[in-house]
């Protein structure tokens, strides 16, 4: 999952980014400027945008309006010091999906991010089950056929993303977009490397029944689409 934080207090953006990366292993980009933030948010690569309202350049509400006018479906969590009911109403009515006021609790913010992303992928259940794999997205734990499996951060990130879209063909471009932030350097075959790692753990054997390759299109976790 990849999150964009548009927040002009650099330190706050950095703190949130750090927690999201460490605790839920999201790929995180930050923008401290309104114009730049809108441009990034419009790219469609993000699973969630955390949006401050008072920004230099373009204001947060204008970003929100522009995003929704352009048809963006990305969930937007408004994170601001403005806390009157009128502000909250306005933020939500302009297309915001959630509203949290500063100062906030980091754990609560992370839980809200998870909930918004679950909803966006139409997976209301925080536990994802595909084949014998059970992913607890809240606790970040994975079991396979009842046994706990310890995954590296990138492996988990990839598995969670594929599980969120289980039963669909997920292109390599999508995976690259949603799992890596701007600063990470991705080697051309890195996705194949992680797919083969996941296969070793969950889908060994010459014939893959859980993680399928659709030639020229991408990968499917779980049942192949009809």
């Amino acid at each position, binding site marked *: 999952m990849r999150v964009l934080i548009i927040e002009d207090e650099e330190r*706050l953006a950095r703190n949130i980014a750090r*927690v999201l990366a*460490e605790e839920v292993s999201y790929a995180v980009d930050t923008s401290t400027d309104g114009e730049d933030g809108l441009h990034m948010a419009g790219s469609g690569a993000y699973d969630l945008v955390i949006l401050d309202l008072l920004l230099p350049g373009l204001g947060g509400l204008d970003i929100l309006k522009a995003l929704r006018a352009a048809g963006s479906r990305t969930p937007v969590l408004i994170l601001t010091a403005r*806390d009157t009911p009128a502000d909250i109403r306005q933020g939500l009515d302009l297309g915001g999906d959630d509203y949290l006021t500063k*100062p906030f609790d980091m*754990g609560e913010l992370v839980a809200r991010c998870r909930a918004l992303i679950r909803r966006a992928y139409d997976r209301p259940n925080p536990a994802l089950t595909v084949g014998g794999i059970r992913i607890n997205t809240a606790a970040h734990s994975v079991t396979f056929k009842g046994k706990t499996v310890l995954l590296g951060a990138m492996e988990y990130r990839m598995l969670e993303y594929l599980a969120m879209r289980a039963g669909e063909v997920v292109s390599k471009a999508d995976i690259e977009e949603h799992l890596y932030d701007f600063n990470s350097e991705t080697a051309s075959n890195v996705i194949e490397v992680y797919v083969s790692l996941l296969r070793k753990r969950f889908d060994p054997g010459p014939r893959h029944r859980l993680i399928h390759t659709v030639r020229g299109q991408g990968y499917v976790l779980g049942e192949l689409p009809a």
Partner: protein
Amino acid sequence: MRPLPLKWRISLLVALVIAAVIVVISIVAYHDLRESLKATFAVAAADRHVEHEMHEFLRTLLMLGVGMTIIGGGVATIIVLWALRPIGKTAARLRGITHRNLGSERLEDLRAPSELRPFIAALANMLERLDRVLEQQRQFTADASHELRTPLALAKSTLQAARTRDRDPAEYRQAIDETLGDLERMQRLMGQLLVLARLDEVNGLPDAADVSLDGVLQRLAADHVAEAAQRGSQIVVDAARPATVRGNEGQLGQLFGNLIDNAIVHGPAGGTVRVTMSDDADGHLAVCVHDAGVAIPAESLPHLFDRFYRADPSRSRATGGAGLGLSIAREIARRHGGDIKIASLPDAGTSVTVRLPRAL
């Protein structure tokens, strides 16, 4: 004793006038009738007949007079009540006004005679002024809460992020230092808010005394040497002659302290902050604090004294200012019967000039 209601006063007046007119008319008519009757019945025997006729006439006059006075008074009461209706309506509307709908109530739709227009217009004007003050207060509260929440959010997120797992001592140190910086920012802001609240609370000058302005400036310059040195800057005070103003020494120190702070922070590193004192017209003293910093954009100049205004949000954030220093300075200058002006030009830097009346 309570004054008589307007309606009774006017009806009483009208009744009195009617009664007086009727009495005068009666006397004149009585005489004329008597004369003409006497002329008609020019016989002494007819005297009794005349007396009888006159009695009849007098009785009719009296009844007519009393009736007209009562009717006149009644009509006057009704007219007055009708004329005063707009006052009742206005009062009813005013009763419905609270701090919430103050701004939307303009009283323009009230139909009132031209005599009452100025009264209603004055009321509407007062409502508008009250609304402006309330709006400013609301804005101030919103800004103050935003300014306090931001460092609070920073401090909290820093500590929570550090706390999520075990980290190196260096990382903990960084988190602590950053949090201390946030606390300092909040402390400074709370101090400023307190100063403003105290200034707003009291009218005039508490503990006014003769203050040696040159002494205040010299002392402030000495207090700020270390702060200036951190940026490699220096402070030069040109206030050799003694000059006395009437005022509160603490407040004056705050005023010029804010200006010198600004000059150090916004001036170039390694620059010179110049504080000069000179005589001005009308027995005033002018103190100018000058720095050679980047010019303030012309469109920002009129807003610099507004509370929480920042010409450049990102730069001020780095310096930790909340945009209250100059509004405090202006408030204090005004309390001392003076004023404050700011001029900023490219190449010439920024000068803030405070004019204060000399002590008599």
